[in-house]
């Protein structure tokens, strides 16, 4: 997972998967990288092969964190299977999903 800070945006890319195996470490790594100046998290899921319930928990937790500071969590280019999970769990209504 690659994390880069760009002014007020935290860009997260090269996520291989977001599952129970790495959810806790991913969440703590992202939260450590998050500074008070950040108002947006862009998480690129174009390379992620799988997201399970723990992975969704991470995304919801980050969304809540950003909402508490009037910020935004954006999911960029989710793969078809992840897009489907977001749809099925109605999370596409909660998150900003951006496809390019």
């Amino acid at each position, binding site marked *: 997972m690659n994390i880069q800070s760009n002014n007020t945006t935290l860009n997260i890319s090269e996520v291989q998967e977001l599952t*129970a195996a790495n959810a806790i470490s991913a969440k703590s790594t992202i939260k450590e990288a998050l500074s008070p100046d950040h108002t947006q998290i862009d998480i690129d899921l174009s390379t992620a092969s799988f997201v399970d319930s723990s992975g969704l928990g991470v995304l919801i937790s980050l969304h809540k964190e950003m909402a508490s500071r009037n910020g935004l969590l954006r999911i960029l280019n989710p793969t078809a299977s992840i897009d489907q999970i977001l749809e099925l*769990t109605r999370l*596409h209504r909660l998150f900003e999903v951006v496809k390019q």
Partner: protein
Amino acid sequence: MLKSARLICPESRSGMEFLAEAMPLALLPFCGKSLIDHALTELASKGYQTIQLYLSDRPELIRAQVLKGEKWGLKIAYHPTKHETNIEELRSAALEHGETFDEHDVFTLDRFPLSNSTTLFSNYETLFKSLTDYFPSAGAHQLGMIENPPGVWVGIGTRLPTNVKLEAPCWIGRNVYIADKVEIGPNTIIEDECLIDKGVKTEACQVAQRTYVGCETELRQSIAWGSSLVNWKTGSSLVVRDPFLLSRLDDNDSLSREFSPGILSRLTALIALILASPLALISALILKLTKGQALSSHVAISPHTRKKRALAHEFSFHDFNCTPLLLRRLPRLLSIIAGNMAWVGNPPLTPEEADSLETEFDQLWLAAPCGLVSLGDCYQHTDVKDLEARTHAAFFAAKPSRNLSRQTLTWLFFGSNAQTTTKT
């Protein structure tokens, strides 16, 4: 170059919530087909080859019906959106990505047909008037519909006794059972697979697919959707509680199909209970002697969807008053045998806890059966107030799989005691 259209599916509109609760407006069935089916047929006949579908309300249901668009010879691309998108948003998104954009190729699925100037969903009266204007032309394009006598459209497989009174214009769909002495007045639309019982009188009304209308009932200026009744003239609505008057034919069947454990699961639970009964009896005795009470009783609400909330019922189940999870949940085998629980499901909720689930995401908790064990148990998140518990429950309900159930059961038998010991 392929001719492409953008089709925006409507979200719930003000004043139409009663119908939109049952299904996305795009899937409302009119004259034997869903609204989106009519629209895609129309677009295909206009020469469009690819359709970009913008969906905000329950996209998975629409996707399940439209699939890849082979039925219409179309290629469909899906774009789930947070809210109902509009032409301006589509224009700016297209410009941003350097795509061509022509607003004449953008349609919103709130007109019938799409080129019409009257919106369907302003109120129930416009909805009903649009329907009655449309159905004479719909019949001419549908296989299995016969016009006889003029202005009366009847579908194949429909039983029409000789003593029925028919007044044109009216539409009676396919496989409808009309009992004796029924009077079907002008501007009545009875959709497919309905059962209209003896002595029913109708006028200026629509009866949705698979609806039962009871003996001697009179329906005027109404839209009947299962047990829901809307007066299209006044906009008032109510849910009829008496299933002998008005009900959806498959409600109870589908509930049991969707949520009850299969016979194999129940049989396995019975065998497991017989095998574990010596252990259960000894445990009950020890707990009674040491703690005074062997069992703790709980009340839970059966799973239901928002649409079928009225059919939800409460049931009680028991747990042993002890720590090891496998032993504690042993009495739940009785609930599986009774058909109230599954081996793997979501944690049971009390009616009060169920009421606290507010968002669509949260309410997915109730879209899966209550379980002896749940995905949340594996991660020790089962409290309804816990965000992670709600995530596991929503995930399990939205994407159930045998693999996930197998993993959860494996955890119950081989991982739960280890985790309980660690926790202790």
